[in-house]
């Protein structure tokens, strides 16, 4: 069954879009990433103009993470205090990032920098997570001895001495407000530059730097994504007129079902397996982008319709 999209200005197969939504929702419920990195290339692949794909993806993730946040809230998986603090940081960082993006765009290097960020950052985060989660699964049950005086320990001491220490009962930890602000801000800058919700970067930051429990990370990340992507969707509609309502609604329907399954499966899986799944997805995306840089393109020229 085909349906015509008034903003993207093309027809698409309803079932295919529902299926895309389902995949993204499943991943979102399972590991707490929004799936912008996945839905945007899928939409571009079936011929949706890139700007519409990015903008509509943001609107869809806002809808999906609203449902996902609710599911995790009921399961008690959201650390609201942590989420709101990170959010304040990432909004500030995101605002700065938009100007940085504008500067880079003017210099004509924006596209290349985005690609390098994806490959470098995702490759690094993904492969470190992969190694960590694999070793955690292998050593399950045995207590891993922490190296004394190593870099990690020094970092931990440094973090404990930062001003503004605060208790986070939901996550069961104590951390500095300043540190959370800085981390949120750094993620915000990356979000603006990479055009994704930031779950990708935020989830590893929460797991490894803030040492929050994996399940709380998933819920808190979704809660935060809801606000980040909602803001992006409003701006994309306002500035670029690029949010396609029909496309977004179909994706939301598909992903609502996917999220339920993902969240349920996530409850049954241990934290290190969830981290392994996220690591594999991150590494796969980085590898795909790296291959795109290396192989000789079929056509060196490309053409897109300018924004309407």
């Amino acid at each position, binding site marked *: 069954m085909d349906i015509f999209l008034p903003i993207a200005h093309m027809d698409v197969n309803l079932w295919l879009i529902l299926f895309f939504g389902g995949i993204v929702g499943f991943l979102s419920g399972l590991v707490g990433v929004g799936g912008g990195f996945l839905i945007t290339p899928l939409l571009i692949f079936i011929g949706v103009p890139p700007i519409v794909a990015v903008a509509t993806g943001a609107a869809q993730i806002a809808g999906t993470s609203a449902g996902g946040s609710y599911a995790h809230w009921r399961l008690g998986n959201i650390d609201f205090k942590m989420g709101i603090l990170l959010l304040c940081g990432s909004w500030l960082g995101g605002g700065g990032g938009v100007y940085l993006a504008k500067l880079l765009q003017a210099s004509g290097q924006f*596209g290349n920098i985005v690609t390098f960020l994806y490959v470098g950052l995702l490759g690094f985060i993904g492969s470190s997570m992969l190694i960590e989660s694999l070793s955690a699964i292998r050593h399950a049950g045995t207590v891993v001895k922490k190296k004394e005086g190593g870099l990690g320990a020094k970092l931990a001491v440094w973090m404990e001495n930062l001003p503004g220490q605060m208790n986070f009962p939901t996550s069961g930890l104590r951390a500095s407000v300043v540190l959370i602000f800085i981390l949120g801000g750094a993620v915000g800058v990356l979000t603006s530059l990479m055009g994704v919700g930031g779950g990708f970067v935020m989830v590893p930051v929460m797991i490894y730097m803030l040492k929050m429990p994996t399940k709380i990370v998933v819920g808190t990340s979704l809660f935060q994504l809801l606000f980040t992507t909602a803001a992006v969707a409003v701006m994309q509609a*306002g500035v670029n007129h690029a949010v396609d309502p029909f496309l977004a609604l179909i994706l939301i329907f598909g992903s609502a079902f996917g999220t339920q399954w993902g969240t349920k499966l996530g409850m049954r899986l241990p934290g290190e397996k969830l981290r392994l799944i996220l690591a594999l997805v991150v590494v796969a995306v980085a590898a795909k982008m790296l291959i795109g840089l290396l192989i000789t393109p079929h056509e060196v*020229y*490309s053409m897109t319709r300018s924004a309407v």
Partner: protein
Amino acid sequence: MKYVTLLLAFIAFSLQAGFSAAEDNLITQLDSDHVDITAHFTGEQILVFGAIANKGDVIIKVTSPAQDVAMSQKVRNGPIWLDSGHISVKNTPGIMYLLSSHPINQIVAPQALTKYGLNLQSGLSSSVLEGSTQGMEDWQTAFLRLKQSKKYYKEFDNAVTVVGDRLFFAKLTLPAKLPLGEYALDTYLVRDGKVTAHQSSKLEVRQVQSELWVSNFAHQNPWLYGVSFTLLAIFIGLALGILLRRNSNKDG
């Protein structure tokens, strides 16, 4: 059935009309002067038909309103491929189709081809290229190649059927991805390599009903649209989440 009736009506009409044999002439008619784009729009076929006064070949040129496109080029730097050139091409038709009763370069002399814009290269005839000072020819070649590979610019040889040297008809197949606006539909009568008659018609491609409303809202009040649609998306996502969770809890 619709086409047959139309053709019969037209045969009767053209026999009565009686063109003067000395002068070349041509009449074109479309079975619809507009295309309505709705939620179920998956492309449309339009019948173009008409009468010619004398024996000859018929060419139909369809062009959509002018639009701007952005182009980029990848260049190899060491082992990696990077985007290193951007230009914008302004004022070119989004879609251009050339339908003819025989391959165009066999029936039209080269000068007439350029004069009347009866080749795909004519898409660039009033274009403006901005952003680069060198390699203009490469960009233009690439533009035409991309337009053709995406089937936005296309020649349909033998797509026009001429019946008994008096009547012609062609089925114009329009894809789902159509730029909006007023399309120009030009019909040319060609004999001995020369264009001997020409007629222009219009075809309006427009959005209707809810599509038009949505598209107008999104373009005229973008911020209001953005805020209200994002809230709607969050509300629907939330409602679905609650609903599905409640159902699955009952099952469990």
